[in-house]
């Protein structure tokens, strides 16, 4: 089978021509760097994305705290993760990198803060 993909690893956005069978990618053309090959393999069989959103925060100088999944998660989980995050309220102080929610939606991936919030 053949598929055209655009690599999303970096702003270059290489146009990839991917040949694959039921189990694996057999050839990738058009990638300017090795990450394009890895992306093609992932994207064909297990597409993943990093999800970023916000949670509510109390006691900080601002109202909502930006968070992200510490690692990419299966791409169709975006809305579910954002919904789960919308139910959370955290308290300042919190440091960028601190875990806000363990094992979000059973993915084994944590939701972490991406901004430091001192107590205001």
């Amino acid at each position: 089978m053949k598929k055209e993909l655009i690599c999303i690893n970096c702003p270059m956005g290489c146009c990839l021509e991917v040949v694959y069978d039921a189990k694996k990618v057999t050839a990738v053309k058009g990638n300017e760097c090795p990450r394009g090959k890895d992306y093609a393999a992932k994207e064909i069989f297990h597409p993943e994305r990093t999800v970023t959103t916000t949670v509510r925060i109390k006691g900080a100088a601002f109202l909502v705290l930006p968070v992200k999944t510490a690692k990419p998660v299966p791409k169709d989980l975006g809305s579910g993760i954002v919904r789960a995050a919308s139910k959370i309220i955290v308290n300042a102080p919190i440091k960028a990198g601190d875990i806000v929610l363990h094992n979000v939606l059973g993915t084994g991936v944590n939701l972490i803060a991406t901004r430091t919030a001192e107590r205001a």
Partner: protein
Amino acid sequence: MKLNVDALVIGAGPAGLGAALSLKENGIEDILVVDREDAAGGILLQCIHDGFGLHRFKEELTGPEYAERDVRSARENKVEILLRTCVVDIINDEGLITAILLSEEKGLVRVETKALVLAMGCRERNRGNIAIPGSRPAGILTAGFAQKMMNMFGHAPGREIVILGSGDIGLIMARRLTWEGSRVKAVVEAQAYPGGLNRNIVQCLHDFDIPLYLSHTISRITGTGRISSVEVTPLEHGNFAPPGKRFSLACDTLLLSVGLIPENELSLRAGVVLDQATGGAVVDSNLMTSVPGIFACGNVLQVHDLADSVSEEAGYCGTAVARYLRGETKKAREVPLKTGNLVRYVLPACAEAGKEALISFRPISPAQDVVLTVRTDTEELLRKKERKVFPSIMHRIRIPRVPETAAYLEVSFASEEK
């Protein structure tokens, strides 16, 4: 707070902080950074998505994470940052630069400085800039303002969204709103190609099956009180298609992602000359504007695609300001830079003979299989094949040494000889 400094930096985003840190690294201690917001970091604080830092840090960061690294370095290097402070005027009196600051903490103060770095960033084009006919209901916002509402204040701008313009901010907001449960019905783009990066077309539109109408525009806005629909019109050779080909999309919100304008009102007050093509200051190879002692970097100079490239420019600017302050900018002969075939603009306006030049430029339109050349009146300095070029991707090249005899430097893209 000192009222007399070596360098005053306006703006504490990646440009201002980058310039300040570079000044410190170059031994200039007496500097002050001012910013009108509550926190340092600039627009990065509302850009909660990832994709920042790939070039500079070799890892993928979100906007707030990228900003935090600069803010932390600034703190470690004892850079004084005065927040909630607006610069209301700049007075340039024969080499003495005075800035009038309005600060929540300090009140109205005058700060005299030997050098000034403009790092105010840019703002968004709005409905007034693009003149869409129709009524004037609520629910029409710029994409960046919607981003601020959602990511800084936790308010969704609406439920049924249409986005005009395919700039990166609009694309990022399409994904953000979809994840939050709003329905993004379409992204409408007047050009025949997307304004944003390919990766954002994929991960923000394709991932959610959001249609992208290229060569289409919004020809009418309808709604009383709140926007209720927009009329989408195909463009045929730049003109509106006949009414039969138009269609209507119901929506409660229209986001505009139709370009950015460097925010240069202050620069103009200081007498800085602007470039029509970039909307930023005309600068020499030290990023010094037409006013001696006033420098510019980041989005106030030219709208960048990446924070990484803003930081790079800011570092370069800080070094140049430090040289200026030490009296080391003894000028060599200036060699003007020219735009050649397919080049929309080139920055700086001139390089110095015998010295290094860092040149930024963008193509006018997308092109394939072209050859990028930089040449003088007598010789070719650089020749590079480019498989694809896009106006959405800025090019930046370094010429190690501008020839002493060059009358000019010209940057151009030529079709590849077959």
